[in-house]
């Protein structure tokens, strides 16, 4: 695990769907806000 509590979250920039549009999202867009980042395996499975 390279992630540790109380350490900076690894930065990223990814494309995806925001509302009804495709766009790029980066973690730093959320500076000043709480972020719940979650990963899930395999589309079409319950999260």
């Amino acid at each position, binding site marked *: 695990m390279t992630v540790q509590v109380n350490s900076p*979250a690894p930065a990223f920039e990814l494309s995806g769907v925001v*509302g009804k549009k495709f766009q790029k999202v980066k973690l*730093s867009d959320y500076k000043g806000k709480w972020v719940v980042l979650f990963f899930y395996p395999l589309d079409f499975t319950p999260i």
Partner: protein
Amino acid sequence: MAWVNQELRELTYPLLADFTKQVSKEYGVLLERLGAALRGTFLIGPDGLVRAYMVQDLTVGRSVDEILRLVSALATGKLCPAGWRPGEPFLPPLPKNTGE
């Protein structure tokens, strides 16, 4: 996009594709043999610090209630006892350690 339009409908948060699996690797949730990510959840504070994370195996889903409870508790900046829920009392601040 078809998934969003036909099944997910009004998705109120961004849904991102970690196509190269770089991000799941960096966050330590990539199962290399399967090429898929574990169900990892990371709570990141307004300052960009990781404040909590949970990773469970593929077979069990998350508890949204628990995620919200943790964000609420972390956001208070106060001492929250085990099982604390919003509206419940905090623990008194710890006395300063004088080193004696």
